């Protein structure tokens, strides 16, 4: 298809979807159906456009003027390699969400009135459209407007999903923090626009060349702060685990899988494009900061995820972790860019790792949220303690969720492993290049990355096992049925992506050529990573010039498959007798669901190991029958705290509100007090400005 027409077509479809919410006046169902259809069309258009850009015309930028809405700024779209890549990520997940959505909304909230349905359809399309526009924006104003539109639409989706106050509070926190972030972005952008005297990125680049080092760094950190808030970087993450689960599940998939990536886009755009000095490396403080916050977010994110019992909250915390992993790659790329001789292959590897993890995380996190959604829509329970034993009723959902779990735990042969492997290689190269503390820091973050992977595996062993395996703990879980086929289809699409990106990542690397080439100007991704053909991933980056490490996911996957088959044969293949079944061994008692290991119990050892961080609180109440030796009932309540939340946010909130209460309580209602203020103001002003001011 024609590349130029792509974005327009996409925007048109999303627009149509938004308008189709009007249909809710006649039938909510109709509006939902048509709206998601339009969204699907838009997503496919976006997919086509981005693929066309990435494969057809890498390196060339597609610009397009928009109607002049505001006299002081020229609005325009400009789609270059980076934009196209993120547009691709958005569209990939959007396709799944659009397929999945209608059935989900129908089964999850059958009692939704037309008003709510209309709001959701409208918001969904605006959300998708704005996310795509942010990545395609060619000027600061378009960027900011679509950025805010994205926030507002997702806010509407969060608060509109359910009528209870929880959503409203989550939305509030989300909105406030997003606004704070936008304030920082505003300053960062406007400082450039006022220098440039124009809003389009071209002019901003020109203006940025004249910046002195301090201003440049200040602006970068302002922007970083703004984007990090949106990306949910620790300690700016507190809104994320509340807001993401509150939205409808396919929207959660979009928020966690895609919206955070838009923030990553912003960071890359600022660091490597808008603010990058004309020549020479980036200020070292940038990359090291990003690497540091990335590592912190990765570890803390997974540690907090481990202790969640709300399935969707757990997934949301894992988004914090994965954003951290992406930032490790990005930060490393910032550190290494233009610092090394020999074309800077290492920076390319680091950036490739970050971008590849971006798309990988979009795939498996989207899959996992959709899976959680189909559980939710069938059981209306998010607390995994009340689930269990779903595997027998929901085989498809279970299998796909397991797939996602393996992928997100960075286990071969799925996609999560590939990007983490690349990250490891980049870290190894970096450690080889920097001697002294710097190298040690890099290796340390590699170790933290390994820790993260292990903890993620533990977390998903728990999440999957407790939710889907064992015995059903409540009637909700007992009477669950498999999700409708359209929802399954949505999940299969993402599941297939996880497998494809895991088994044959080499072919996806080609898509990274445009962004890596654009940002780094060094060797492109495929020239480094798939130098030995698409089936082999290699890193040609040893200081000794030796050929680094090369692995082949495809061969390993084939080997695994063959070995499984052989093991199957070893076990007797088809000729083997069907197994006898017997109750699980529980020391001779007849097992009930109470015997199953709960999520709390599963996570307990790690809770104790990391007690310093969790500050766990527990309350155990015993009801004894007269003598303390005979317990009638025992009630256990335990919780852990999010340090950032309790130590920073609650404190600030308390102080501010207390202060305002105090001020308000002290204010007078007496008129002579009012008059006194007026007189005082005049008197002071006269003295200060009339006599002193000269």
């Amino acid at each position, binding site marked *: 298809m024609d590349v130029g027409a792509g974005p327009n077509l996409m925007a048109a479809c999303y627009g149509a979807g938004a308008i189709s919410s009007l249909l809710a006046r006649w039938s909510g169902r109709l509006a939902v159906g048509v709206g998601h259809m339009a969204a699907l069309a838009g997503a496919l258009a976006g997919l086509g456009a981005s693929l066309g850009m990435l494969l057809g015309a890498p390196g060339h930028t597609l610009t397009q003027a928009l109607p002049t809405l505001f006299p002081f700024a020229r609005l325009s779209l400009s789609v270059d390699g980076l934009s196209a890549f993120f547009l691709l990520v958005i569209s990939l997940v959007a396709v799944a969400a659009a397929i999945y959505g209608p059935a989900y909304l129908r089964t999850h909230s059958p009692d939704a009135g037309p008003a709510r349905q209309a709001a959701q359809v409208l918001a969904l399309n605006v959300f998708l459209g704005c996310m795509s526009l942010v990545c395609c924006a060619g000027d600061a104003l378009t960027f900011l407007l679509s950025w805010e539109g994205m926030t507002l639409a997702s806010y509407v989706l969060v608060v509109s999903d359910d009528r209870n106050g929880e959503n409203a509070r989550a939305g509030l926190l989300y909105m406030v923090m997003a606004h704070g972030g936008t304030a920082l972005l505003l300053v960062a952008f406007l400082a450039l626009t006022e220098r440039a005297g124009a809003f389009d990125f071209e002019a901003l680049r020109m203006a940025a060349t004249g910046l002195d080092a301090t201003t440049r760094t200040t602006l970068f950190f302002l922007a970083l702060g703004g984007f990090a808030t949106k990306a949910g970087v620790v300690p700016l993450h507190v809104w994320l685990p509340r807001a993401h689960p509150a939205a409808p599940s396919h929207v959660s998939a979009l928020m966690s899988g895609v919206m955070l990536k838009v923030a990553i886009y912003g960071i890359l755009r600022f660091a490597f494009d808008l603010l990058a000095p004309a020549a020479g490396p980036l200020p070292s403080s940038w990359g090291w900061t990003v690497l540091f916050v990335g590592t912190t977010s990765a570890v803390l994110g997974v540690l907090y995820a481990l202790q969640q019992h709300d399935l969707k909250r757990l997934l949301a915390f894992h988004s914090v972790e994965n954003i951290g992993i992406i930032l490790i790659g990005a930060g490393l790329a910032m550190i290494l860019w233009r610092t090394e001789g020999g074309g800077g292959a290492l920076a390319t590897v680091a950036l490739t790792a970050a971008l590849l993890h971006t798309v990988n995380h979009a795939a498996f996190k989207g899959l996992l949220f959709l899976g959680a959604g189909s559980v939710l829509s069938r059981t209306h329970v998010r607390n995994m303690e009340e689930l269990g034993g779903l595997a027998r009723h929901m085989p498809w959902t279970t299998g796909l969720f397991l797939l996602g779990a393996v992928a997100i735990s960075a286990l*071969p042969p799925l996609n999560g492993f590939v990007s983490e492997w690349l990250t490891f290689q980049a870290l190894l190269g970096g450690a080889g290049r920097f001697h002294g503390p710097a190298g040690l820091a890099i290796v340390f973050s590699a170790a933290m990355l390994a820790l993260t992977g292990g903890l993620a595996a533990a977390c998903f062993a728990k999440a999957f096992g407790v939710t889907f395996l064992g015995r059903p703990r409540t009637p909700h879980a007992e009477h669950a049925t498999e999700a409708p086929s359209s929802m399954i289809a949505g999940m299969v699409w993402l599941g297939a992506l996880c497998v494809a990106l895991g088994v044959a990542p080499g072919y996806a690397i080609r898509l990274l050529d445009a962004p890596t080439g654009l940002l780094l100007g060094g060797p492109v991704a495929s020239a480094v990573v798939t130098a030995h053909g698409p089936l082999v991933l290699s890193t040609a980056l040893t200081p000794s010039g030796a050929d680094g490490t090369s692995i082949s996911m495809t061969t390993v996957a084939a080997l695994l498959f063959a070995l499984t088959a052989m093991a199957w044969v070893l076990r007797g293949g088809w000729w083997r007798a069907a*197994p006898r079944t017997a109750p699980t061994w529980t020391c001779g008692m007849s097992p009930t669901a109470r015997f199953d290991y709960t999520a709390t119990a599963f996570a307990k050892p790690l809770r104790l190991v990391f007690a310093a961080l969790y500050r766990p609180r527990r309350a155990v109440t015993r009801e004894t029958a007269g003598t303390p030796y005979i317990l009638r009932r025992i009630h256990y309540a335990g919780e852990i705290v999010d340090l950032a939340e309790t130590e920073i946010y609650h404190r600030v909130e308390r102080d501010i509100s207390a202060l305002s209460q105090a001020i308000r309580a002290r204010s007078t209602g007496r008129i002579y007090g009012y008059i006194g203020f007026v007189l005082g103001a005049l008197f002071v002003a006269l003295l200060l400005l009339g006599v002193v001011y000269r």
Partner: protein
Amino acid sequence: MTGGRPLGLVLLEMILLVLLGPLVTGTIQKMKARLQCRQGAGVLQPYRDLAKLLRKSTVQADTASGFFRSIPLLVLAATVAAGALVPVVRVGPPAVPLGDAVMLLGLLALARFLTAVGALDAGGAFGGMGASREMTIAPLVEPVLMMVVFSTAVGAGTTELGTLAAHRGTSWILGWSAADFLGFAAMLVLLPAETGRIPVDNPDTHLELTMLHEGMLLEHSGPGLGCMVLASHTRQIVTLGLVSALFFPVGPANGAGATSLLLGAGRFAATILVLATYLALVESSYAKLRLFRVPQYLGVGFVCALTALALRIL
């Protein structure tokens, strides 16, 4: 890449490892028995057990889902595939790129993950407890292991074990730097944890208080259990192989003379034997640690590894 190990050889080495796995276990058991002044079973006992298990029929928990029966196969496959990444008789990169140390750890982690999932599948407290504890220890071991690998890999700039070994050359203990010693010390601390032995785990018992790995196998039976047991044998020898590849690189990088192959095999066997003896000694001279003392125990390894890296990089 010259001197690459042909795929055939790689697969041969893999099969070799799988076949020798039970023998190592048997040897360790025998040594333990001796150290405890017992006669003990023959070194071939594990083979007999396996043969018996494979012949038996399966009893499966009624709560287990459809996944349960495929789990032993996947676990075994993953572990054996990890075996393919360890150079046994020759160093140098494989002619057909396969995987590196990270991939090896990944495959072992995959096996562990699936085992834990299988344990949870049956329901019931024992499996869950075993899974929970296993998944508690593993994340603490992995970063240290990764650091040990890095401490040798930083110099070579690669994590591919064959290339790594080739880059180290056939350096014997006398040729070691301080970093090597510390890294090796860390490895020695980690070995019992990674192979599921005292003082971290106790392979000989299903008692609730001590078990990690064994508890997870409780619900498996017959051929399935056989696969799991074989997998744990293989896992053990693969871990030992990893150590020998990192610290006792063996065999000439190229030149496929039969003698050199035999030499390599011999040295590999020697290394394995030494490490096995070490494990046996540790097992019979230490008591199992309480679960919550394990982090401190691993902490020792962490410090060693970090120091090794510091020495290597600074």
